[in-house]
């Protein structure tokens, strides 16, 4: 398959700069561990935030870390779309008989994010061991769906940013509010925040759908019927549709630059 070839090529390229990738990977992990420690210190003092305790928050932290790292690893081409436009690589992709979205996925794979994704998964596992959850098949399914749909939502945000950059050609710092900003917010259950903020991150950018909503199902919390919590990741995934449409619409209007 073509994508395997892309992975092979990126692996070969990355191996040329082994120590650099290792440094990047470890520094990213150190930052994550620092963030987790600050959450730990917080819970030392407060015991709980709402009805969420430390390990539940750690599980959320693990999910968010894994979701962001995986998306940043595999959808890097969309994240760095402005540079794809600027250095003319998009023109190159357009003269090839392969679907554009597929090619943009193939254009960049950031392996240095993988270690952090693993860290996220390890944190998830540690948290799960320490939480007395009675696992059922649906709960496992919901957890898996949460990670997958989380990736789709973040990819959606990247698509919007990429779509807008077709017209501005600039790196859009304000998109960071929704990518990195949302990440900081989502380390904690979104429903502890101000009403408007939590609505924004539930209905407009559905970060809550891979945050406290599915966890409420897994933990058996919350006042809504459990079906709502269980299906929330799928609701989040719907967010991708308009994002993808916007991106494709923008790509059609792409005006190549310069020579």
């Amino acid at each position, binding site marked *: 398959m*073509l994508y395997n*070839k*892309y992975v*092979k*090529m990126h692996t*070969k*390229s990355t191996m*040329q*700069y082994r120590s650099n990738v290792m440094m990047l990977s470890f520094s990213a992990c150190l930052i994550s561990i620092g963030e987790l420690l600050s959450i730990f210190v917080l819970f030392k003092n407060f015991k709980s935030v709402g009805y969420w305790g430390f390990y539940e928050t750690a599980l959320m932290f693990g999910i968010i870390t894994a979701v962001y790292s995986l998306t940043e690893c595999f959808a890097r081409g969309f994240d760095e779309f402005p540079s794809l436009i600027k*250095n*003319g*690589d998009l*023109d*190159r992709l*357009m*003269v*090839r*008989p*392969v*679907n554009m979205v597929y090619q943009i996925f193939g254009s960049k794979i950031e392996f240095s994010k993988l270690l952090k994704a693993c860290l996220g998964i390890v944190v998830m596992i540690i948290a799960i061991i320490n939480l007395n959850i009675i696992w059922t098949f649906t709960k496992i399914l919901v957890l898996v769906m949460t990670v997958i749909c989380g990736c789709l939502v973040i990819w959606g945000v990247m698509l919007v940013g990429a779509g807008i950059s077709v017209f501005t050609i600039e790196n859009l710092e304000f998109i960071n509010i929704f990518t990195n900003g949302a990440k900081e917010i989502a380390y904690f259950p979104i429903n502890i925040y101000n009403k408007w903020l939590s609505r924004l991150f539930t209905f407009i950018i559905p970060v809550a759908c891979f945050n406290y909503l599915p966890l409420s199902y897994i933990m058996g919390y919350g006042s809504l019927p459990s079906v709502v919590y269980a299906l929330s990741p799928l609701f989040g995934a719907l967010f991708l549709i308009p994002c993808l449409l916007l991106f494709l619409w923008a790509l059609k209007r*792409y*005006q*190549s630059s*310069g*020579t």
Partner: protein
Amino acid sequence: MSKIIQFNKICKDFKVSLKKSGKNKFLNLFKREHKTISALKDVSFEVEEGDIVGYIGPNGAGKSTTIKIMSGILNPTSGECSIMGYTPWKDRKQYVKNIGVVFGQRSQLWWDVPIIDSFELLKDIYKIPTDEYNETLNELIETLNLKELLNRPLRQLSLGQKMKCELAGSLLHRPKILFLDEPTIGLDAVTKLSVREFVKTINKKWNTTIILTTHDMSDIDALTNKIILIGRGQILYKGSFSAIKEKYDHIKQIEVEFAKPYDKIELEGYEVLSHNHNFATLKNKEEINFHTKDFFNAISKKYDVVDFSVESISVDEILAKLYTELKL
């Protein structure tokens, strides 16, 4: 011969936002004035299958825009274009299987990975059957002398070697049309010659139609007699290159050596380009036809001439003249 490319009244407008400097900078964030720049105005031309066509014009004339429309990257504001029966920007995926594009200044190969791996990836991208791929690759290796380069990453190659690999990469799927955007830019004389030789070979062997943009007029001189001249978004001339050369054939540049140094050289009907002790370079004015005998008679009457040589003006000068004449 059949028409492989048909361009019919293609127009392309770009909307450019005007950024005002000074006090209004903040307001500009919200309100911007737009200006429409037309990069191409009613561009029409045809190219026959198997031709090499030189597409020339000064910087900013619209060459790249045309190439981008032809390769399906840009869609024009209006007009029709049919290439091998496809409309490039509509049937992009189907269409680009049949074309190869080399942008002289950016690469399609991977920086850190051996060239052969980049080629293998292209094989998968274009879904080239293995037999066909091996055959084409061997042929390209032979004609371009690529054997030693294939296992080295792009970053270790010189500019000339890179261009050779670029050319090979864009020909692996045996395109019917090859677009070359300034293929000889920055190359040394030897590499330039071999790139030209290769382009000619491919054109003959595979009957590949080649559209070439360049600023190096010797490229045109060596490769083709068919040119399309574009300036300020309009086609100014299409036809044979020799016709243009003939038009300026009567202008000559004459280098004269005198027996002794003169303070000033003047000759009616001639322009003195340079003058240094015993030597001077003259050029006849455009309205006069140059005759060696007349010239010699005229100059030897006034000065003591030892030797002189007559040269036609260079292709570059012809083009520069043409550009000024057309006010580009």
